[in-house]
């Protein structure tokens, strides 16, 4: 049996801006895992995601990304990071651009990826629409489509299911299944327990400046015990 290489490894990492919010994080993420990061507001969930994305330097320790292809890391921040004055097509195409290099067939390949992604998210009729005209739920679909077109090995998503009604959550989760089939791992910050149960395979809880790593089963058991 071959041992799976982790896509992400955190070794004794201290996370924060000036003072550490989370100390001595030791964790690894294997291909295909879906990790939900839980904890109260201001505890350091977003900072953890930003540190993994390379946007914040860790105060101490080592963050090793083993994404070995172009555009291997996908990111959906809380504010979604969409180009508001550009069209839906332009925004989704950014994801494809990040992962497809210059080649003879790149334009066709990008177009195919964009079309597949918007179809999966049900926004194919909005392709030419400027992003600024879309509703909150539609914006989240566009950000997800961008990640889908990118096909990253590790996707970092900060509350990308929030503000979505139940029906939209199902559409987004169904679309993301395609990424999971390709072996993408996901680390997502999430507040809604029902979304976590629907989707996650492992749980990271930040509590008392420490990151606690649970399997979904262990976490559900702890919830039952608390009740």
């Amino acid at each position, binding site marked *: 049996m071959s041992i799976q290489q982790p896509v992400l490894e955190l070794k004794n990492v201290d996370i924060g801006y000036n003072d550490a919010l989370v100390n001595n994080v030791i964790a690894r993420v294997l291909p295909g895992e879906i990790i939900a990061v839980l904890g109260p507001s201001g505890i350091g969930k977003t900072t953890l995601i*930003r540190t993994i*994305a*390379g*946007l914040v330097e860790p105060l101490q320790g080592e963050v090793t990304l083993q994404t070995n292809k*172009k*555009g*291997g*890391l*996908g*990111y*959906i*921040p809380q*504010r*979604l*990071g*969409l*180009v*508001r*004055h*550009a069209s839906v097509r*332009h925004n989704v*195409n*950014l*994801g494809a*651009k*990040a992962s497809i290099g210059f080649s003879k067939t790149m334009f066709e390949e990008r177009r195919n990826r964009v079309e597949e992604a918007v179809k999966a998210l049900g926004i194919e009729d909005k392709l030419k629409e400027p992003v*600024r*005209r879309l509703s909150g739920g539609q914006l989240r679909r566009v950000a997800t489509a961008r990640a889908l077109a*990118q096909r*990253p090995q590790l996707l*970092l998503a900060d509350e990308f299911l929030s503000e979505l009604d139940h029906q939209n959550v199902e559409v987004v989760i169904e679309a993301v299944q395609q990424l999971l089939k390709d072996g993408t791992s996901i680390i997502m910050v999430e507040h809604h327990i029902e979304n976590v149960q629907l989707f996650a395979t492992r749980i990271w809880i930040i509590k008392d400046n420490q990151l606690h790593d649970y399997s979904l089963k262990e976490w559900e058991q702890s919830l039952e015990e608390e009740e």
Partner: protein
Amino acid sequence: MRGGWIIAVLSLLLLAWFVLNDLVDDWGRLEGGMDNLVIFVEESMWPPNWSVLEAQSYPVCENDIELFCSVGYLGMMETIKIAFVSTMLGFIGALCLSSLAARNLVPLYVALPFRFILAATRSLPSLIWAILFVIVIGFGPLAGVLAMTFYTIGYLGKLQYETYEGMPSDCLEVSRAMGLSHPSTVVSVVIPETGNHLLSQLMFMFEYNVRHGTVIGIVGAGGIGYYITTYLKFLQYDKVLALLIIIFLVVVVIDLLSLMIRSFVTDEGDVRRPTWLKGMIKLWKKRGSSSDAE
């Protein structure tokens, strides 16, 4: 708090007054100044001499429409051409340099040298650039184009990198995390996101260059300024006034054009599509559909 502001503004005004008083050694000069101006305008400038819109005696006009051979038309067209080409070249040059000078796009050690380059190009006024290029390549519109291009790069470059630095950080962070290259980020994220501001700055610069075309013409760098200098030398102020009115009208038209162009870029920003333009578009669509039906 409001009282504090009022005191601060009043103190600044008082300081300005003291500085002005220090600069002016003889206030008596203001006496009768207005009368001098009225006499000068009435006797030398008014009414404007519209012969500047008649064909010149030499070279012989071969065009059916006399206006196209006039000093006013030829000079203005040359100024507009110089302004257009130099604005375009300057805009492209500024785009390349400003993206390397914005602190949120590149590290400080890259941004600083490019900021110095832009500051250096901007610190020489276009008139000095024009003198330099007239010395290097001689009189004519090419010297004007080069002078204005250099000034435009410095001026627009600063406006552009300040616009980039004020844009929302989330889309830049996404492109950085996704691994998009610097040119890709600039072309696909920064320019589309700040497009309305860039367009507005471009139109402002074009208008500025048209107005400044008159100044650089004075040193022989082509355009309507050349004719203004000639008329000034021969004390034909009525003709100068006519040319200044033409420049004013062109500036107003550019302003309207800017309003129209920017209205196509955004539908929720600072510019709404003018009512007359909406009416024209409606009419044009109506005509299109009726001709299709026929």
